[in-house]
């Protein structure tokens, strides 16, 4: 099957302007999202995953701004769009599912109003009746019964609300759904159901999903490819199977080791040395070098570029560097 690029991100920089100085939460990140795939984006808390997710919709707010990079979505340059044109992309072509379904719906609006409003916002010519009909059909597909559509968000469970959030993204047949830790606040059974739903929807709606999470298990379960972020940079990206079987970057290796496992028995869980660096004053060279078990001289001086390794994987590490010392 030929690989078709849906969203190409090149050298994306996002900065937060704070009193302590500018914090670069996303530092020249480049990767592609392929049409029809589920791409998992993993990393520790505060490594910039959510900022990246929001930047992909140009949804960042005041202290944050995109300071550089190119965003090409489905043949269009998103950076060149005006705010008004961008609005039609949001929801219309890229949808978003937030971490906490308890707070991501308007408490004073009925579920059906959320859906019809989304449809009417993008297709003002649609009649209200038609919008309601469409919303009802869509909700049924997602397993929301018709009589529940007249309820308010607080009357629904977390799993149901997450379904509503997804249906908002699907109401206009968004091509890409950015799911920002969608299952974090759900219990495991609801989480499993939700992940099944994601897979089904991908089949049915021909959906591409960027799944942002810190839960490695979720990524292993549903993703086709996985991207690993560390301290605002992308360190490794590639096919899930090969990365889980043979992680190249020392950080990825550490991350996979730290996942609790029932077969582990009494052996103590692996804990990575040190703590993630402050982005206000990041380490020189490779940002992982203070914690890296395989650190070399060059790591402290120079930042490793992402380079192709194997058939489809990329890694940013001098261990695999052919560049020699520069």
């Amino acid at each position: 099957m030929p690989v078709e690029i849906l969203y190409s991100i090149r050298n994306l920089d996002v900065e937060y302007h704070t009193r302590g100085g500018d914090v670069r939460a996303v530092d020249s990140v480049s990767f592609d999202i392929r049409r029809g795939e589920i791409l998992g984006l993993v990393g520790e808390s505060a490594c910039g995953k959510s900022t990246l997710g929001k930047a992909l919709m140009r949804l960042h707010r005041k202290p944050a701004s995109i300071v550089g990079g190119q965003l090409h979505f489905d043949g269009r340059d998103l950076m060149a769009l005006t705010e008004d044109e961008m609005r039609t992309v949001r929801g219309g072509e890229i949808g978003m599912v937030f971490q906490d379904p308890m707070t991501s719906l308007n408490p004073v609006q009925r579920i059906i109003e959320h859906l019809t409003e989304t449809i009417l916002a993008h297709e003002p010519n649609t009649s209200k009746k038609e919008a309601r009909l469409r919303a009802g059909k869509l909700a049924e597909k997602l397993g929301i019964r018709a009589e529940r559509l007249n309820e308010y968000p607080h009357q629904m469970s977390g799993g149901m609300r997450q379904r509503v959030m997804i249906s908002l993204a699907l109401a206009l047949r968004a091509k890409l759904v950015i799911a920002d830790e969608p299952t974090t606040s759900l219990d495991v059974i609801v989480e499993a159901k939700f992940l099944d739903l994601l897979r089904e929807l991908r089949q049915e709606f021909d959906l591409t999903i960027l799944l942002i999470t810190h839960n490695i298990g979720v990524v292993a379960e549903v993703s086709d490819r996985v991207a690993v972020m560390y301290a605002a940079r992308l360190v490794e990206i590639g096919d899930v199977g090969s990365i889980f079987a043979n992680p190249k970057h020392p950080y990825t290796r550490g991350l996979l080791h730290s996942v609790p496992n029932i077969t582990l028995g009494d052996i103590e869980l692996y804990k990575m040395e040190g703590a993630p660096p402050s982005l206000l004053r990041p380490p020189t060279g490779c940002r992982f070098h203070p914690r890296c078990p395989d650190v070399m001289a060059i790591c402290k001086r120079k930042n490793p570029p992402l380079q192709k390794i194997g058939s489809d994987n990329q890694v940013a590490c001098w261990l695999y560097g052919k560049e020699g010392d520069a």
Partner: protein
Amino acid sequence: MPNKDNGNPNANNEAWRNELQQVGFVRRLFQARKWYGADWWFVAISTAMVFGFIFVALFPQWLAPYRFDTIVGTSFLAPGEYPDLPMLITRTDSPTNSLQDLAVGANADRPVIGAIRGSPSAVAINEQSQIVDEQLVSGNSGLRLRPRIERYVTIPALLDAITAGEVAAGVANESEFEEYSGDYPELHSGTTISGGTATAGGFVMGTNDIGQDVLSRLIWGTRVAIVIGFSSSIISLLIGLPLGLLAGYFSGKADRTLSLVMDSLYAFPGLILAIAITAVLGPSIYNVIVAIAVLYIPTYYRIVRGQTMTVKEEVFIEAAQSIGARRWEILWRYVFPNVIPSVAIIFSINVADAILTGAGLSFLGLGLPPTIADWGIDLARGQRHIQTAWWLITFPGTAIMLIVLAFTMMGEGLMEIFNPKLRER
């Protein structure tokens, strides 16, 4: 309000019922907040009071015995005191009952009416018979009333004359007649000379310094209080709410400037500002409303702005952006409905405040023209006679207290119901 957040609703319901059966009715009433989530009776009583006041304000003409500006009796009648009106006194066997009965044809002999020399009743009979005469003439009845007034020095002399038939009727104040009526069984008092019978039991709340009914003025005054309270609150709401919403949502330079203006307005002593505004604009009900409205704009502005700034950081606002909602759409459909509950509470308390300020202004003689029935004006007029006529200030004062209490209690009660954090567990 049912208790919602304690786990299993069925088990909770069961416990609720058990507990309910164990307590008596009175305790149940007082502990109602445990089951309904707030002092429901607090809200119920105050809401009933508020609606009562609004009803009185809408239909004072049905409830008040007189108009607020009619002079109905002698001044300074205490509550329940019988008004001492000049009465028409006749023999019991005389057919004459009112002044009209004394009217005769134009050429007939003029009737003779007895009165006490130099007494107010003598003046009154003169005036009243002229009025009746004019009515008869304009009514083309062919009758006239032009009595000859025969003056006597003492009451017994007058009563003797009536008994003897020297005069057709006599005029004396009711109290004067009552004093001697035992000695003259053949005499009785008919109607007051102005036609009506004296109000039975006098005036419930007495009369004021110029003989107006205090109760009627109180009832008509409700209208002014409600009008001032509501319209000034609505005006400040209509200005403060959108400003607060816009400032809170868009922030930036305009917000900072506006907040500075509002804060300075807020920091300025309220009543002094209102006094200054009405002093410049002149006394009229519209100017009072404007002055009070200006006073309370910052209250709405600050609350709405704060709420907006909280709401706009909520995830569902970001979610709305992520589905491509327009900015004004987010403001109108997402922020505004989430701000409204706190505004409703402020509004109720604000009406009470506005009524109080309005009364304060007219008490100082700055607010309303004195021809209007207003509690503040009544208070100001009454305080001059505070030592002799307690009823002049007691009733308007109580009315002000009750209306302010009703609105404030309603606001506080609503706040407790809407704000679960204040709820007692």
